[in-house]
């Protein structure tokens, strides 16, 4: 118990004491995972919409691949991204291995199937005739897509939350492609693993709590936006 309590005290001391290293690790985690989530949204939402609204040969295979991708083990992603970015790998010339960019790439691979899969599901819950009715009052194709996204905004926010939650909390891929280099690629998860391994449980708990608080804050914000429009179910009589 004392260990946990010490950890909490240390966490507060580090955060509110303005520890430069902790703040830089936290900031890097937020930047990397935020950017990875953003890229995943840009790639995943159109892919999800495409899979939901079109029919083409091989669509079932594509949907099954996206669904499988939603549960990709981060370590496996880390392994394949490492192979691609390795100096002798196909993308070795980019010289990205052990850089924050490498972590972003790995996290995009983890998050975009989650975003695409949840977008697909959210669009499939829309009435297919809604699109026809919107075209019937003069919507252009881009306006139609925008209106459908707005209509599916509640489940789409869930996609954002799941995507961000998936990448801010993963450790395997960040460790493998980032290398956990102090001051360069050390993020909250890899730092927590490192400190726990060294027996610095108070610091590990502190980093873990910051990660938890960060994740909670982002999800709380998104949940607040999402739940503003909650349907009020009638009370059973």
């Amino acid at each position, binding site marked *: 118990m004392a260990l946990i309590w010490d950890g909490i005290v240390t966490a507060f001391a580090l955060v509110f004491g303005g520890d430069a290293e902790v703040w830089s690790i936290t900031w890097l985690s937020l930047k990397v995972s935020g950017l990875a989530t953003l890229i995943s949204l840009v790639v995943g939402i159109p892919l999800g919409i495409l899979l939901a609204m079109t029919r083409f040969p091989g669509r079932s295979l594509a949907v099954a691949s996206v669904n499988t991708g939603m549960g990709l083990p981060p370590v496996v992603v880390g392994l394949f991204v490492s192979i691609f970015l390795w100096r002798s790998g196909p993308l070795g010339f980019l010289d990205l291995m052990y850089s924050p960019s490498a972590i972003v790439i790995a996290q995009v691979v983890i998050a975009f199937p989650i975003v695409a899969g949840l977008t697909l599901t959210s669009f499939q819950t829309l009435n297919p*005739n809604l699109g026809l*009715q919107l075209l*019937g009052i003069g919507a252009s194709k881009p306006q139609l897509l925008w209106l459908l996204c707005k209509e599916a905004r509640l489940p789409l926010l869930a996609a954002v939350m799941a995507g961000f939650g998936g990448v801010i909390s993963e450790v395997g891929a960040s460790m493998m492609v980032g290398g956990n280099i102090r001051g360069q690629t050390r993020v909250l998860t890899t730092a927590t693993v490192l400190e726990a391994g060294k027996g610095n449980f108070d610091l590990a708990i502190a980093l873990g709590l910051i990660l938890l608080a960060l994740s909670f804050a982002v999800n709380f914000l998104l949940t607040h936006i999402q739940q503003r429009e909650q*349907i009020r179910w009638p009370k059973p009589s």
Partner: protein
Amino acid sequence: MAEALLSLSDIVVRHGDSTVLHLSRLEIRRGEILAIIGPNGAGKSTLLRVMGLLQQPSEGKVLFQSEEARRENVLLMRRRMASVFQEPLLLNASVYENAALGLNLRGLDRAEIRRRITPWLERLSIAHLSSRRVRTLSGGELQRTSLARALALDPDLLLLDEPFSALDPTTRESLLGDLQDILKQTGVTTVFVTHDRHEAFMLGSRVGVMREGKLLQVGPSLEVFTRPADESVAEIVGADTRIPAVAERSNDGVTRFRFDGGVAEATGAFTSGARVIFCIRPEEIILSAARDREKPNHFTVKILKIIPSTLHYRLLLQCGDSRLSALVTRSSFMDLGIKEGDDITASFEAAAVHVIGKE
């Protein structure tokens, strides 16, 4: 004849191997209300989607204001039309935002949108609901919002796809009455698809009858209802008595026909021996207790079945081996004091018979 606002020619729509719509030619004239009726699966909604440029036909041409619809101009053309569907699908927003949606899509400014929306919200009796979220509305209120959304666009062509079929009878009556007034006042060219012949007759200046993807007949409402082109149309427009008959002789524009149940007269000259179908609308058959079967077109019939409804009683009658269908008002039914199995005299005017066959 008024100028054609929309013309369809040689339209074919296929779904896989089956042809769901096959139409050689149809013109929608400016200012008219064309009602399209037909059973489920007749292709009515597909036709409306093709007219609204919401579905591209497999073959054929659609001309709007004499210009052929193509990929480049389809959005501009669609923006001169407005569609209302059976199930009003609105966005998860307020009544006002939904009613304003079409105008918003056209980039109008807020003041202009408010100026155009407000009268329609009032006209359709939903102004008091303006700030309500649509998911709290009843079916009738949703459809009124959907109508406001379409009418506020001031379209050149209004396309209505069974807008009342999902509503309860009271709401339907009220909305139908409102729509009738609105269409009359605005004079907007309208195509109205329904499977309800009463709605079609009430609203349509012309009526088109569809079955199995084909337009069987199109013409002025009264003509289609009283002079159906074939037996299929007769069935759809409710000419329930359809009896095979053979022409015997013509005299002074009246022909005697023999059918399985006797001899009857109908107006028109027919070649002796011509095989025809005798069509009589149920409201044209008169029932009486008097035994005057010697008069022309008077027959003693047996009452097979009595089907009561709120307005009328429908009676199925046996005349020889032929079946007749008659409608009588509640008070006439009470006066006649009849029951199933009774014999009664049924009669009709020679002019009330529509003969399908070669004249």
